[in-house]
Structure formats: C-alpha cells, structure tokens
C-alpha cells in the first residue's frame, strides 16, 4: 500500500511542482495543501490527469483552526491565522487511492475559496454546509443558501467562538399564541475540561 502511495506523492509533486504548499504521507493517508488561488485549477487536474484520476469527491469539510492546540483562548483574534480551511476527500476508483486536499481561505473576516461544484457536481451540498456552519464563501457556487440551520438563523454555529448553547432559544408563547425566540436561559457549562497534556505524560 505504501509503495503505491509513494507513487501518488511522486506524481503529485511532479505534476503540481511549485503549486504544492505541503505534501505529507502520514499513517497511509496523503494530504496535499494548495493556495486558494490555485485551488480550482489543481482540483481540475486532480480529476482529469491520467496519473491521478480522482473521479469522486467524497466529502468537503469546513474547519476552523483558530483554537488548534490551545485550551486557554479567550480572545479569538489571537488564535491561529488563517483560520478557515475547506478540506476535501477525494477518491480514485481507477487507481484505488485517496487524497486529502486542504485549502486555507486567506482572509479570516471574509473567507473565500473557489467552488469545485463544476468539477464534481456532488460538492453542491457539502459546500452549502460549510458555508452555513463556518461562513466560508465558495466563489462560483450558484446556489449558496443555508442548509442545516433554521430559516432566518443568524451566525455560523460551528465556528469555535460560537457557544454550544447558541444565542437564542425557541418556545411557544401562550399569550401571543405563536412560537417566539428569546435569549438563551441556560448557563453554559463544561463537565470535563479540555486538556492537552505534554508528550509522554503518564508513561513514566
């Protein structure tokens, strides 16, 4: 398996050359990182090049890296930058290999990357989801609407600075005889704190 993946890595670095920002092979998985400007072109080559042939897009996942490796982050402007990335998982049926393609959106306040819907039509809803949950804009997507949250929901709930409890809650108001929104009444709490241990902790 790893011989095959090394061949894939070799193909990738030969084909994309300086457009490769990082290329890693860890634990039997290949990860390719490219700049947002090259993203669309690289994706097209990934699908069409006979030595790559990634016919299928399995997944696009929005990620917010702002608090990566941190447990003490209070002010989210001090976190990692660039914050937002779109991570796609590609599959080639011809060669039977997979690739993870990561692209960071350069601007944190208005994250934009190209849409790959014209290359893989199945990307449509994945991109809508990443837009809905993280606020990543996909340029060239013709129907970028919210998908999972409520109609009229404000904000992007999966961002790290969005609380788990949210900001508003919904209840039926017997006086007004309709459903009303109000600020949340529950206190945020954390049962098990998030802890990052130093390396070799507990391995005496």
């Amino acid at each position: 398996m790893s011989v095959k993946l090394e061949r894939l890595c070799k193909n990738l670095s030969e084909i994309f050359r300086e457009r490769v920002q990082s290329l890693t092979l860890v634990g039997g998985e290949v990860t390719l990182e490219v700049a947002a400007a090259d993203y669309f072109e690289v994706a097209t080559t990934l699908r069409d090049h006979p030595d790559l042939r990634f016919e299928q897009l399995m997944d696009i996942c929005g990620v917010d890296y702002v608090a990566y490796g941190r447990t003490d982050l209070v002010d989210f402007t001090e976190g990692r930058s660039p914050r937002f990335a779109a991570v796609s998982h590609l599959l080639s049926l011809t060669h039977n290999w997979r690739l993870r393609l990561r692209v960071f959106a350069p601007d944190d306040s208005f994250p934009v990357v190209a849409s790959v819907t014209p290359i893989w039509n199945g990307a449509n809803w994945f991109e809508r989801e990443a837009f809905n949950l993280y606020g990543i804009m996909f340029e060239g997507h013709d129907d970028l609407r919210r998908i999972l949250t409520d109609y009229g929901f404000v904000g992007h709930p999966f961002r790290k600075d969005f609380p788990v409890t949210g900001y508003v809650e919904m209840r039926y108001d017997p006086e007004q005889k309709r459903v009303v929104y109000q600020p949340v009444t529950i206190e945020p709490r954390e049962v098990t704190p998030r802890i990052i241990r130093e390396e070799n902790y507990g391995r005496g």
Partner: protein
Amino acid sequence: MAEIKNYTVNFGPQHPATHGVLRLVLELDGEVVVRADPHIGLLHRATEKLMEHRTWVQSLPYMDRMDYTSMFVNEHPFCLAVERLLGIEVPIRGQYIRVMFDEITRIFHHLFNLGTHALDVGAMAMVLYTFREREDICDMLEAVSGARMHGAYYRPGGVYRDLPDSMAKYQVNRFKNEKTVKELNKARDGSLLDFIEAFTERFPGYLDEYETLLTGNRIWKQRLVGVGAVSPERALQLGFSGPMLRGSGIAWDLRKKQPYMVYDKLDFDVPVGTNGDCYDRYLVRMEEMRQSNHIIRQCIDWLRKNPGPVMTDNLKVAPPKREKMKANMEELIHHFKLFSEGIHVPPGEVYAAVEHAKGEFGAYMISDGANKPYRVKLRSVAFQNLAAMDEMARGHMIADVVTIIGTMDIVFGEVDR
C-alpha cells in the same frame, strides 16, 4: 385561452413517505416535476459540534443516533479513526465480532428500507414481514449490548464485551400462554451465537418470500422500473456510493477494494445492477442481504472455534478489568483517569470509511492532542444521495418522487446530523 402556470407543492415535513422530516418544495407542471428543492435540517442536532465538547468515548454513543436504522455499523468509522490515530490494533476476535455485527446491522437496515419503500409505493404487507425479522435482530443487539437499538457496543480498541452465553427468554404472562412462549423460546435455549445461527438458517427462506411478493410483482415493477435512472458517469459525479453506485453498474465496494477488519478473509460477492434505476437498486439490496447472511455464517463458525480477547489490553485506551481494579493501584489510577479525563489521542488527522448499508460512511477527525476531538466531520451517505434529488426527480411524475425517496434510503438522523 387560460393562462397555464406551474404549481408549487410543499411535500412534508410531516408526510409519512418522507421517512422523517424532509420538506420538499416541488414545482409541478401538471403532474410532472419541474424542480425539486429539498429543505433539510429539521433534525439538525449539531452532533459534530457536541463531539468537540465531549471526550472521545463520550462522543461514541452519538454515532448510534446518526443512522438509527443501522446502529452498530455507524460506530465503526468512529472507532476505526480513533484506533488509527492511536495506532492500536483490535484483537482478531474483536474484529470478527465487529464484522458480524456490521453485517447483522446491514440486514437490519436493508429490511427497514425494503419494508418502508414498499409501504410508500403501496405494498402495505411488506413492512409487517420485515419488522418481524427486525425484531429478532433487535433481540441480538440487546443480548450483546443491553440496548435494543443504541448499543454503543464498539469501542476504540475493540468491542465492549464478549458475546453472551445465554439469551433472554420470554415468560408466561397475561398475553402469552405457555404454548406461545414455548414457541417463541425455541431458538433461545443456547448462546447468542446459536440464536444468530438459527436466524441465518431461517432468513434465506424469508428472503424468498419477499421476492415472491415483490420481484415479479407487476405493480411493483411498474412503479420502480425505469424510475430515477442514473448513469454510471452521473453516479460518480454526484458522489454516490454503496447500492446507489452499484445499482448503476460500478462494482465498487470498500469491503473488497479497501478491506478493513477481516473482510479480506471472508468469502462474499458484490452484486451490481445494469440500468441504475430504482428496481436495480432494489435487486442489489436483496442480493446484499443474502451475501450478508453468508458472511454472518462464516463469522459464527470462526467465533465458535476461536475464543480470545475482544478488547485491546492497552490501559491508556481500554478500561481495566473490574476485579483487577479492586486489587491493584495502577489499574485503579488508569480507571480513574480514563473516566474522568478520557483518552488522549495524539495530534493528527485521519479519515476512516466503512461500507455502511447505504454506502461509504466516513469519519474525518482532527485531533490536537487533547482529550476531546478538535473537529469531527461525519460523511453521511444519505446527505449526498438527497443532494441528487432534483436531478433524479426532474421529469418524473409526482408519485415517482415517493419511489425515489424510498430508493435513496434516507434516514434523517444521518442527513441532518
């Protein structure tokens, strides 16, 4: 001359044929669908966000609630991903148990799909038969995990416990007399494996009954043949997997192509369709149930002969034995740390996918070394299938929309997450 306008219909979210809470806005020209716009998210629970705030083991039971018609196999990609990040191996007996329950839940899921699909199309009786068999499977799941549906049985490092030696039995009460109880308990005298084996012997006969009811049935064929046809090229473009892809004639099955656990040691075939329509996908699913039955029988044979551990002995991951914990300080500390702080997973990222009953169900995880995942993304199959709704329904009659929803195999726990 009257002005003719397209008509927009709101289908769901409380329509029984939407398999849950799908709201479908259909634009109709007469009875022909011009545009279908699915509105989802009515069951969105933000599972992935919740997982970021739970430890690795606390997150696991959420996986059962993803596709609540095939529970155990949902836990599989989660466990695989954590195991790959930790670099631990599952004992071989644990692997066989996992594969056996993957296949049992595959049957469990296909039975649900078959029953409700037929019910939507108008064959009322099917759901009564398939739920009879699902009841037996519920009993298997209960015997092994304690819960009829949401078992949380697979754990990072193996499975929670070994297969039990006895099955729960029915007792005489106001509603069941001695004769009925004796009949019901017939297969329950031995161990769980005996019970499963008895099921696998009965099951092909049941499948023949379903085939008699449906496969050659004129109404069933009129409703399914040629409806929702997808060409192999489009199926790839739309990101289909599982029976949706195989129905279109592409022989792609992760159990064969990228085997995980012990699938490479088992003998089974992968059925493939030719036309890519609803009827072909139905045939693929029927044959998959027969193949699953065959795999389960092989697992039973192996499990009878080979006792052994089912969970890794790495105490940083798996809880220690109860009796050891009470006598030994080190085990006690491990137990305490494991249940108060949880597993620490080394930094990294991983994508693990399994061949779920619906197709490729994957878990993408990013860990930054904490006791909680940094980000979990679950690649759900039905979400992707439903995205193709517009393309598949366009040009069909409104009644065919129900057939297409049935063949897509959507379960909202998984679509909305």
